[in-house]
């Protein structure tokens, strides 16, 4: 053990992450590894990761309703929150990517065959870098429910896809944010893949009237928590 060893990130909390072997989500059946993963003590490789302070990733796209000539159809929403680590410390300067279906439940993707209209004024992609307090904010429209072929007559709960990097390769996460009160949350298998109910419910945003814009858009708050260090890093 060398004094220069990097401080590892904390291991996964039980029940907080979905298993990859989860047959209720059919696409996992042929894609989940059969062997247990090899546990790797963190080295410099795992505790480092891409930095976004130099803006090589492109400009902020915080308002998904302003990307085309006209306004997209649908219910305008503001979604905002913070990226924090397990110890409640803000994660600044990290990239947050957001993508989603349009108000009719259709993705601007060539392989999406759902018979719902595309919206020429909506692509459904945004990205921002978090501020010093780990804060981020998007303006968008509420995505529609859509059918998928997981089982007969299956429909997905309304959701936004989020991709967050954090400070290290080990903190990378891609997830989905859901909306409060959606009746499809009771059965959505992707949502239910997270075993622990409290952890699962953390994926549901809170309606937050303080984020709503009068006569304009409805507000939702959602905080994202990334892995923290197994021990407090020395200052300096």
């Amino acid at each position, binding site marked *: 053990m060398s004094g220069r060893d990097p401080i590892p990130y904390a291991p996964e909390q039980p029940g907080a992450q979905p298993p990859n072997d989860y047959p209720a989500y059919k696409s996992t059946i042929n894609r989940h590894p059969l062997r247990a993963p090899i546990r790797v003590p963190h080295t410099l490789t795992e505790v480092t990761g891409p930095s976004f302070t130099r803006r090589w990733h492109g400009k902020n796209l915080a308002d998904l309703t302003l990307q085309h000539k006209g306004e997209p159809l649908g219910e305008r929403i503001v979604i905002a929150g913070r990226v924090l680590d397990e110890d409640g410390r803000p994660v600044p300067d990290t990239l947050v990517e957001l993508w989603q279906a349009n108000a009719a439940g259709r993705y601007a993707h060539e392989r999406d065959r759902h018979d719902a209209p595309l919206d020429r004024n909506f692509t459904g992609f945004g990205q921002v870098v978090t501020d010093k307090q780990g804060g981020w904010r998007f303006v968008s429209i509420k995505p529609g429910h859509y059918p998928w072929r997981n089982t007969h007559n299956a429909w997905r709960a309304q959701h936004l*896809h989020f991709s967050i990097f954090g400070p290290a390769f080990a903190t990378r996460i891609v997830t989905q944010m859901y909306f409060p009160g959606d009746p499809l949350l009771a059965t959505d298998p*992707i949502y239910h893949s997270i075993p622990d109910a409290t952890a699962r419910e953390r994926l549901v945003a809170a309606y937050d009237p303080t984020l709503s814009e009068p006569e304009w858009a409805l507000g939702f708050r959602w905080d994202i928590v990334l892995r923290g260090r197994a021990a407090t890093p020395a200052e300096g």
Partner: protein
Amino acid sequence: MKLPVTGSQTVGPFYHYALDRPEWSDLTRHGARGEKIRIEGRILDGERKPCIDAFLEVWQANAAGRYAHPEDRQNKKPDPKFIGFGRVFTDAKGRYAFTTVRPGPVPGRGNAMQAPHIAVNLFGRGLLKHLATRIYFPDCAEANEADPVLGLIDDPKQRATLVAQPAKPTRLGRAILPTFRFDVILQGEGETAFLEI
């Protein structure tokens, strides 16, 4: 009191229009120092069918073996023209390819040295949480033999899944790039060794 970590959810099948940045498949695009190489391969499922809706993110040290990150305080030359991060999608045949520079060796824990390697996070439809693995180089046999992470894998066949294979060099404009093949098999016979990081 610790806050609960946000749970992972699949990227699903419909992310390409949002996440695809074709330029991110060339890690040398800003003019990185070092030996330019190409890595290519396929991502296959348990039935050996190509995964057409998956992508890799890669992270590596520069040619001198230093990461572009504040926690890397090694006394090695930084390369301001090398970010060290890439993202690359599979095509309709499950193939991917990226161009980078060969990474230098980086320290492991204790006094160990790690063989040159590229860290990989793999995302796709059907993966509720992304999978982590590593790419090592076939022409670094001695360093691979001493690598502390490869050393954690007891089964030599499984260990070998992390070592890329030499492939036909790639002609890119006037340059001819040494090329390595790294296939990812998600499940079953020949399954790639995945890492819990």
